[in-house]
């Protein structure tokens, strides 16, 4: 079923560093989990039960609540053929949707171009963070990158507000005047003027925003709040991207992993509440992914890079449930010491693109893939999420 509308929005949260699947959705009913994870495991009594075999790790209370409300899709065993355990390469593969070749364009860059073919809105896609992730990169597709919405802009290090205003006036004058008809100079002038304007528009999002939700002051909480502010300002933004990390828990995993998920889960719970408060919950779907899962066997203090992982889709219009199945922990089923992935991430991309954003996914994900039936239909019928 499709619910795609011109108003649907996608919020992508990248869990950078390789999230430990086994300690996220914990297979506490499987003795092998405790055999392989002698040191780095979640005790059965601490697990937030999904069923008698699996459950969320502690810290994911808010996501558990959304799960209970039927708004969370858990995509088990997600990955791609010939898994690569390099952070950079594997992230690149997720970003470009090209597991075999070095890709040229990000899948969301292409998505943005499809959503806004004439590039009319420079805010169709906004990245909350500095430096554009390759997922959003595509030649000629403008994407705004906002480190911090409240302080976004030019000459932000000029501390004195009066001085800063004078400096910005001078900048506006330098970039705003015609410059001898030279094409590159004119282009630079336009870009500088746009940058000032873009910063002004984005700042209005902060001023317009009122909410009863109080986000935590940590980085992901602030990023999710920034995303909500831009969304409610009605600037036509369809793609929202942010990241959190680092999930690269080779050492000291138990404490770090708990904190990361506590912060992320709370931020997502707050974000969903904020959506509902502003009647935006039905138009918004979140995708949470990481570049890979981690080794099945722990290293005594943490876990090393692995492959098969878990992803989540969250939203009022998402059919909550289990998609695909937990890969077997039996040794003969391992893939080089990792959980054996059982579904290609491009199935999930395809489902989102076609059924949520209403686009033809084939050119965006570089191929034809089957789909998961993630979304409720237009009548709000509660479908069965099981795949």
């Amino acid at each position, binding site marked *: 079923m499709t619910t795609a509308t011109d108003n649907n929005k996608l919020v992508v949260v990248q869990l950078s560093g390789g999230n430990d699947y086994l300690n996220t959705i914990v297979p506490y009913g499987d003795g092998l989990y405790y055999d392989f994870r002698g040191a780095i495991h979640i005790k059965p009594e601490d697990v937030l039960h999904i069923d008698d075999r699996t459950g969320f790790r502690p810290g994911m209370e808010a996501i558990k609540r959304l799960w209970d409300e039927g708004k969370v899709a858990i995509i088990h065993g997600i990955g791609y053929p010939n898994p690569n355990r390099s952070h950079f*390469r594997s992230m690149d593969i997720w970003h470009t949707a090209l597991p075999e070749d070095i890709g040229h364009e990000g899948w969301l860059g292409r998505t943005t171009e499809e959503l806004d073919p004439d590039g009319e809105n420079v805010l169709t896609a906004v990245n909350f963070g500095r430096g554009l992730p390759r997922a959003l990169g595509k030649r000629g597709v403008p994407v705004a990158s906002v480190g911090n919405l409240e302080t976004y802009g030019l000459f932000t290090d000029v501390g004195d507000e009066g*001085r800063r205003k*004078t400096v910005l006036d001078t900048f506006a*004058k330098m970039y705003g005047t015609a410059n001898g008809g030279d094409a590159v100079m004119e282009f630079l002038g336009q870009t500088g003027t746009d940058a000032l304007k873009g910063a002004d528009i984005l700042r209005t999002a902060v001023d317009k925003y009122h909410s009863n939700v109080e986000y935590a002051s940590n980085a992901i909480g602030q990023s999710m709040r920034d995303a909500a502010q831009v969304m409610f300002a009605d600037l036509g933004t369809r793609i929202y991207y942010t990241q959190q990390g680092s999930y690269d828990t080779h050492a000291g995993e138990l404490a770090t992993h708990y904190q990361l998920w506590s912060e992320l889960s709370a931020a997502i719970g707050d974000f969903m509440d904020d959506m509902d408060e502003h009647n935006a919950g039905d138009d918004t779907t979140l995708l949470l992914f990481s570049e890979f899962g981690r080794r099945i066997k722990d290293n005594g203090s943490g876990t090393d890079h692995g492959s098969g992982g878990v992803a989540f889709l969250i939203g009022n219009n998402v059919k909550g449930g289990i998609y695909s199945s937990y890969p077997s922990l039996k040794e003969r089923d391992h893939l080089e010491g990792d959980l054996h992935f059982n579904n290609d991430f491009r199935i999930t991309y395809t489902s989102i693109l076609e059924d949520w954003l209403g686009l033809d996914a084939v050119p965006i994900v570089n191929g034809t893939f089957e789909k998961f039936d993630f979304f409720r239909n237009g009548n709000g019928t509660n479908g069965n999420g099981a795949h």
Partner: protein
Amino acid sequence: MTTTTRQDIDLMAHLMRRAAFGATLDELEQKAAKGYEETVEELLNPGDPGDLSQDAIRRYHVDHSELRQMNSAAGNWLYRMITSKNPLEERIALFFHSLFATGYTKLNQARCLLNQIDMFRQRGLGRFDTLLVELSRDPAMLLWLDNNESHNGHINENYGRELLELFSMGIGNYTEDDIKEASRAFTGWTLGNVEYMAMRAMKDSIWPYSRIAWHFQYRADDHDEGEKTFLGESGNFNGEDIVAIICRQRATAEFICTRLFQFFAADRVDDDGQAAIDEMIDSYFASEYEIGAVLRTLFNSDYFKSDAARYARVKGPVEYVVGAIKTAGSYRQPTLGIDKVAEQAFFMGQGLLNPPTVEGWHEAEEWIDSGALVERVNFVANELADTSQPGVKAIIGKLADANGGTLTPDEVVDNCLDQMGAIAVSDSTRGALVDHVGEHGNLSLSDDSSEQRVGELLGLIAATREYQMA
């Protein structure tokens, strides 16, 4: 000695923006007094780079010595760009890094990338055929374009294809069969100790391509000894023969000379520019493919010296950042935090050692979008407003020495533009800067706030449209 004119200074500033990372007015005056052609020769015949030896850096500067991580390795290179007395060596390395774009994303090993950059430093001004042979033996390149996966009887065409398409001739000048035959000739060009390294890597998921840099090995038993036909010539070719045939082609000369022209002279090639490229092509053949000779021809050409070539290139993020740092005088020692500068350049669209693809970066106007411009302006404004930096202090000192330390707004702006490297700006830009300074009247260097005003102005100059160009 002849008298140095304003024109000499401006021309020298132009040369130093292209063959180096800019220069102060003092440096420009010294070089102009020495002469233009003499300066070109100095640039082309580098001596001791004068930066700290890599051994000393690795011993005493832990932040630089972790060369496996991308940003610490990129920071190490940035430090060399900032401090080297052989700036053209760094620029030619940057040129070849953009052209033979090899990236960390696949290698997960920055040390072998830095080794490749060092090879560009050593070979980049020499013969193009020697460079291409070295490139074909380079471990980072072997892995990046899969030549280690290319075997006798089972070729992997990736390197053969890009060697022709992106590195030497350009599309349209060879056939698909030529790609296959070139790939056959490069079979056996692989990494040493592969089995051991693969085994180590399997056990070490953090560094899937191992913790130590790879090395080259030629495996005669995996080389295709059969007859090959490449670009119309036949023989039992090995990789060196393929490179020799490539370098004889007119298309190769046109390709490499045009790319050098765009990197050193102008983003766009007009008719006068094409005439300069034609001269470069003549030098390419006359010198037996020597890149240094081609650049000598370019720098001494009428086109390069003409007004048409001035400010005709958009600065890439790395040269922009390095230029501003050199003016500010910051990072002159191997300091903690240089990896953050590498990060800044990435925010502006150029992650050193991390090109988006084998095609390198999209350059010229494509360097600029509103996000990149915001990052550029904020970085330079911050760097140059810091009046504790030696370069900024030196400029303030020069102003204090002029006119008894009291200057009109016009004098302040003209002095600062000159001290930053004889920068030319349009009348409207200059007017806006003068108005900005004039808000508080004349500048008296005895005044406490005056230093801040100068720092602010330097930041604004680096934020101008003109400063985005070289």
